[in-house]
C-alpha cells in the first residue's frame, strides 16, 4: 500500500510542473501564439527561485523571484515577437538557449559553481497538511501533505478553465487566435490580449520552475527543465488547449515518470529516464491515429 501511495505521490509531483507550464501554454495557444519558450521560462524561473530563496531565506521570496525570472523571459518574448514582429519560432528557440546561457553564467558568477548548486540555506516550499483530510486512512496521504505548488496548480486548472471559457477576457483571447483582424476591427487590440496571455504564461511557468528547484528537489542544476517545456507543449497540442484535458494528460506524463522510477529495479536508469519522452511520442501517435479515423468518418 505504501508503495502505491508513493507511486501516486510521485506521479503528482512529476505532473505538476508539466501541468503548470502547459496551462500557460494553453493561454498562448488560444491567443494564436506559437509559444515554445516555456522551456526557457521554466528554467529561468527555477534558477531565480533558488536565488531568492537562498538570499532571503524565504520560500515566498523564492517563488516571487521565480515568477519574476520567468516573466523576464516572457517580456523579452513579447518585445521580440509582438513589438518587433520577429518570427515566434526563432524567438522561442533563441530564448530557450538564452535562458540556458543566462542561468549557467549566473550560476557561475553568483554561486561560483559549475553544473549544480545546492546549499542547506535554500528554503524549500513547504508541504501543506490539511487538518481534517489528513486523517482519512489512505486518501489522506494523497490529498493532504502535498507541496503548496501542487494545490496552486489544481486551483490554476479551475481558474484557467473559468478564465478562458467564462470571461470577457477569455472570449477576446480566443478571438485573438481565431481571427485577430476581426478582434482588432471591433476595437480590442489583439496585441494587448497576446501581451496579457504571455504574461500569464510567464507567471504559470514561474510557478512550474519554482516547483522544480524548490519543491521537487531543493537545488538548481544546469538545464534542469530537461525538456519539460517541450512535453507541456506536446500536451497542449494533444488536447487542442482544453485545460481539463491538459490536467489529465499531465497526470499521464506524471504516471509515465513514476513508472520509470518504478521500473528502475529491473532496467538501467538510462532507459527508465527515457519513459516520459517515449510516452510523449506514444501519445502523439495515438492522437494522430484518432485524428485519421475521424477524418475518415467525415
Amino acid at each position, binding site marked *: 500500500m505504501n508503495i502505491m501511495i508513493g507511486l501516486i505521490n510521485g506521479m503528482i509531483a512529476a505532473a505538476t510542473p508539466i501541468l503548470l507550464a502547459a496551462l500557460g501554454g494553453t493561454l498562448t495557444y488560444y491567443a494564436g501564439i506559437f509559444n515554445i519558450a516555456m522551456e526557457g521560462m521554466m528554467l529561468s524561473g527555477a534558477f531565480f527561485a533558488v536565488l531568492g530563496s537562498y538570499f532571503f531565506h524565504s520560500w515566498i521570496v523564492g517563488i516571487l523571484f521565480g515568477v519574476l525570472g520567468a516573466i523576464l523571459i516572457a517580456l523579452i518574448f513579447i518585445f521580440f515577437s509582438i513589438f518587433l514582429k520577429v518570427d515566434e519560432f526563432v524567438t522561442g528557440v533563441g530564448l530557450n538557449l538564452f535562458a540556458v546561457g543566462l542561468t549557467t553564467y549566473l*550560476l557561475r558568477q553568483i554561486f561560483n559553481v559549475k553544473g549544480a548548486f545546492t546549499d542547506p540555506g535554500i528554503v524549500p516550499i513547504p508541504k501543506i497538511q490539511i487538518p481534517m483530510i489528513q486523517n482519512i486512512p489512505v486518501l489522506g496521504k494523497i490529498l493532504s501533505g502535498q507541496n503548496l505548488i501542487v494545490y496552486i496548480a489544481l486551483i490554476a486548472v479551475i481558474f484557467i478553465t473559468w478564465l478562458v471559457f467564462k470571461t470577457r477576457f477569455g472570449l477576446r483571447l480566443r478571438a485573438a487566435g481565431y481571427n485577430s483582424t476581426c478582434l482588432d476591427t471591433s476595437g480590442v487590440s489583439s496585441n494587448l490580449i497576446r501581451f496579457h496571455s504571455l504574461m500569464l504564461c510567464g507567471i504559470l511557468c514561474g510557478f512550474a520552475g519554482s516547483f522544480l528547484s524548490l519543491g521537487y528537489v531543493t537545488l538548481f542544476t544546469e538545464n534542469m527543465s530537461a525538456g519539460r517545456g517541450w512535453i507541456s507543449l506536446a500536451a497542449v497540442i494533444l488536447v487542442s488547449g482544453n485545460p481539463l484535458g491538459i490536467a489529465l494528460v499531465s497526470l499521464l506524463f506524471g504516471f509515465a515518470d513514476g513508472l520509470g522510477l518504478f521500473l528502475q529495479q529491473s532496467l538501467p536508469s538510462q532507459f527508465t529516464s527515457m519513459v516520459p519522452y517515449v510516452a510523449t511520442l506514444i501519445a502523439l501517435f495515438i492522437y494522430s491515429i484518432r485524428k485519421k479515423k475521424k477524418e475518415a468518418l467525415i
Partner: protein
Amino acid sequence: MKRNLFVNLAGVLIAMLLGAIVMLIQGYNPAETYGALFGYSLANFYSFSTTLRNAVPLILTGLSASVAFASGPVNLGQPGQFLIGAIFCVIGGLYVDLPPFLMIPFLLLLSMLGGAFWSGIAALLKKFFRMDEFITTLMLNMIADYLTYWAITYPLFEPRANHPQTPLITKNGFMPKWGNFNTNVIVMLLVFFVIWFIFNRTIAGYEWRISGKNSLFARIGGVKIEKNYLSVMLLTGALAGLAGGLVIMSGPHRFIKGLGANYAWDGIMIAMVANNGITATLLYGLFFSILQTGSLGMELITAVPSELITVLQAVIVLVVVAGRGYFELMIAKIATRRKLKDRDIHPQFIDQNAINREDTKL
C-alpha cells in the same frame, strides 16, 4: 546582398556592445576582455587552426539545420542525430580495423548513416502517422541522449575509466593532422561545396527551396513534396551525424559522457542567425567558433567566466534576427511611401495601418 551584410554586421556589433555593457556593470574591462577573446582564437596559426577544428561540428550541424529549415521540414533533431552519428562512428572504430584510407571514409559513412537513421525515424513517423517532426525530433533528442549514455555505461564501457566513456577507437580511424591543422576541416569544406552545389545548382535543390518558400505553389508545379521531405530529412540527419563522427575522429577519439552537449543546438542557432543561407551558415559557424574557442582564453587571461559567451551567442541571434525583420519592415514602409508619392497621394492622408496592417502598436 550589401543590405544583408550591413544588417548582420550591425546586429553583431550591437550584441557585442550589449555584452560590453554587461562586462562594465560587473567591473571587467570590455576592451581587454574582447582582446583576450579574439587574441586567443585568432592570434597565430596554432590558435587559428584550433578555431577551425572547433568550427567543423558547428558548421555541419548548422548546414543541417539551414537546409532543413529552408526546405520546409522543421528538423530540430540535430542534437540527437549528432549523438547517434557519433556512437555509430565509435562502434565502427572499435570493432572494425582497416587501413586508414579505407577506415576514414568507412567511419564517415557510418556516422552519416547513424544520423540519417535517427532523422529517418522522425521522417517515417511523419510520413505514416503525420506526427509533427518538430516535436518528434525533440523527443528523439532526449531519447538519443539517454540511449548513448546507456551505451557508454554498459556495453561500450571502458573498465579502467572512472566515468562513463568508451575505449579509444582504432588509430587508423583518427583524422590525420598537419601540425595543429586537423583535416576534418577539409572534409567539412568538401561537404559545404557539395551542399552548396546541390542546393543552388540542381533540380532537387531548386525543388527543396521552392517547397520551403511556398509548398502549395511547389505542389501545384509538380514537386513531389513527400518524397522531397524524406530526402531532406535523411540528408540533414546525415549531416548532423557526420558532425558527430568527425568530433570523435578529430577530437577525443572516444565517446565521453556529455560529448557535443552544445554543438548541435549551436548549429540550430547558427542556421537561424544565418537566415538559413548556406554561405552565411559557414561564416557564422566560423564566427561562433571564434567566440567559443576564445572564451577559454578570455577566462584564463581576464577571469571573465567563459559561460558569458553562451549568453552573448543567444543575444547575437536575437538582435540580428530582430534587426533583420525590423529593417525589412522599414524598407517596405519607405518603398510604399515612395510609391504613394509617385501617385500624388500625400502619405499623411494614408492610414498607417493600411500600409502595414500587421504593424499595429501595443
